[in-house]
């Protein structure tokens, strides 16, 4: 088992290498477009070791060969079930996790090849908003300090103007400056999420990874936060990676959408195309499972059988085949290729021609 696993990992790695070369050819043809992309992810892989040391080493393939691009000033939504690796993608892209293999280009620089000091210089330009506003704020720091700390560290503004700058950022995010000396526990969930957003925005970033920023909030507060994120984008031209499991929110906020299943991207494309014409059976099932707030709406639910398989031992071939009603024998043998069938719409499924 262990040998197989290692061999497979090696094999995958070599595949990646060849995959990169192929992709480079594609890239040359798209070179003009490539300039518009702020973030480019190529064959990103992240494996976490599982099991005890000394025993057979297994790997949780949290992210397995993912490629996508995000254009400047747009929002990409990343959807999928819990445990499919959405958050890992977000974190690996910011090099909060070291990647197993693959490349992430941020504004033309390969962030995996950067030295510590160069990465540090790049850090303020890539920020993250975390999922839980209750656990991601230090309870022992006043809000002004939470927002201002990184600003001072990275010398975004001269120290003399720091408090003024923090006040401006707080104001942008809908927090009165009088709150700067209060502590996080004195705020409600929605306000805490505003603090998290202010902390990220204060560094004048280009790219923000929003990791489920609204899933811990109530509906009425959720709308406030989404509006805030959109206002900020309109004003300052941020690029977002919006990770969420709530499809209606993703549909509203995103320009492009990537659908993930068990560490792989199964469908990627323009929002309108994906929602109008979901091609992958998993995307179809996911969309049909979204509850519609309309009692007259009769849904043709595609109910998926069973649960998401373990990422340690994913099914061979197409990973979705165990739950897919269209699966054939061929699906178990090899992986479907990720092919662009119409402009801005890529799918990996054997239902569609593979050449």
């Amino acid at each position, binding site marked *: 088992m262990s040998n197989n696993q290692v061999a497979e990992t090696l094999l995958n790695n070599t595949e990646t290498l060849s995959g990169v070369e192929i992709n480079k050819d594609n890239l040359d043809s798209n070179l003009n477009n490539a300039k518009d992309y702020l973030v480019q992810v190529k064959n990103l892989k992240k494996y976490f070791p599982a099991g005890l040391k000394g025993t057979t080493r297994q790997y949780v393939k949290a992210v397995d060969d993912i490629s996508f691009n995000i254009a400047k000033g747009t929002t990409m939504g990343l959807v999928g079930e819990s445990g499919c690796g959405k958050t890992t993608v977000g974190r690996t892209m910011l090099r909060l996790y070291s990647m197993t293999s693959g490349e992430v280009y941020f504004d033309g620089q390969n962030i995996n090849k950067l030295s510590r000091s160069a990465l540090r210089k790049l850090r303020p330009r890539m920020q993250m908003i975390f999922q839980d506003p209750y656990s991601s704020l230090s309870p022992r720091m006043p809000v002004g300090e939470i927002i201002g700390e990184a600003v001072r560290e990275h010398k975004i503004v001269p120290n003399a103007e720091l408090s003024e700058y923090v006040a401006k950022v707080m104001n942008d995010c809908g927090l009165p400056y009088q709150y700067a000396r209060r502590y996080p526990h004195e705020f409600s969930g929605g306000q805490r999420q505003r603090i998290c957003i202010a902390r990220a925005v204060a560094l004048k970033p280009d790219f923000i990874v929003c990791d489920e920023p609204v899933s811990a909030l*109530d509906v009425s507060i959720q709308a406030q936060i989404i*509006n805030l994120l959109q206002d900020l984008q309109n004003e300052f031209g941020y690029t977002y990676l919006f990770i969420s499991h709530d499809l209606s929110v993703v549909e509203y906020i995103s320009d492009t959408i990537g659908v993930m299943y068990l560490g792989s991207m199964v469908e990627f494309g323009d929002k309108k195309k994906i929602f109008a*014409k*979901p091609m992958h059976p998993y995307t179809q099932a996911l*969309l049909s499972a979204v509850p519609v*707030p309309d*009692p007259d709406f009769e849904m043709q639910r595609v109910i998926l059988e069973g649960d998401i398989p373990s990422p340690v031992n994913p099914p061979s071939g197409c990973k979705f085949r165990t739950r897919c009603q269209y699966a054939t024998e061929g699906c178990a043998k090899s992986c479907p290729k990720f092919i662009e069938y*119409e402009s801005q719409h890529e799918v990996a499924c054997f239902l569609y021609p593979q050449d």
Partner: protein
Amino acid sequence: MAKDNKNTKNTQYLTIKEEREIAKSNRKIMKQFERTKNRKNVDESEFTTQMHDPRNVIEIDNLHTYFYTDVGTTKAVNGVSFKIPEGKIVGVVGESGCGKSVTSLSVMQLVQGPVGQIVDGSIRYTTSEGKCYDIAKMPRDEMRRIRGKEIAMIFQEPMTSLNPVFKIGEQLDEALAIFEPKMSKEEVKARSIEMLEMVGIADQKKIYNNYPHELSGGMRQRVMIAMALICNPRLIIADEPTTALDVTIQAQILELLLEVKNKINGSIMLITHDLGVIAGMADYVVVMYAGKIVEAGDIHDIFKNPKHPYTVGLMRSLPSLSHVATGSRLYSIPGQVPSPVNLPDNCYFCNRCEYSFDICMEQYPPDYYFEDNHRAACFLYDEKYKDLDLVKPELPRNMADDSESKMVRKIPQGRVVLESETDRFGG
């Protein structure tokens, strides 16, 4: 809780002395409640009542559940009345902290004592033997005969509500062993396995011997449902049964709930904050805000013709297809829920409400009835203020309209025919 409201600012910080005084008087009150609850051998006539309508499974009438904390009395449920007819699903919606969970815990008499107490009101329930009891007045001993057997509950977090040190089977058997002492161990086990089969667990005998951590989230929730159904309850309280689950698993669980409801012919009280789930499941909806019901009615009344500004606000803040199509901003209800410790005398929603007028600042509105069972607590519908030409909240056209112009998403199944292909064949 937000403490930036002007009216709560003065009372935000209490001196130690004040706090002690509150604690002292609280202790007195709590002791009294606990004593009445802990009495033994109470005569049945004391808590026997009559149902107002025999077709209802449960009637909650003017329920008040308070929490006596050291900073003041939190009125978590503050005069809630609704009923659940036999074989129907009643949905309770509201934001976090509005008292939906406390309402359900009151019905089960599971409110965390001695701090939390049912202070006033009645919860009338008819047992399968045909006796009608008032749960709010029942002593603790007597309640044990109803809880779990007649009224069962499915909790939000399947991981925290299953005991990690016992096998699934043992936890399932426990309830039957208590309520059906005549059954032998083998019979109990057979019944448990049958229940696991009923909730769609494939390998029941193996799962019976598994521990909770060995199961996935969806499986655990299925086990929870099996556990709730094992004694054939007449009423199931589902407290956010799918909030911790993914959409695809949520669809499975909701389907299962509908299926088992029909099988055991019971009623469900479905608590959720997801209006989409309610729309697909419930027959009757109750909208709660700050411990009170602001609107209640038939599912179609609530979704097609909501009356209370809060209900309308909730509906409008959901991202809908029309938002996506036009790219318009989401509506958001400004402000925050008032602190439940210092509730004002006026309408609790008035400072967040764009339709509020003078009277809203002065007193809490009574319920105004519309057709059927539809009611809303809002002064906009008072006949007295008819002449003022008040603007009433309305849903955007496409949400209220039944016409064909409504945007409905059709999801293709299986292979999608691409445009390029149709071109090829067509041209």
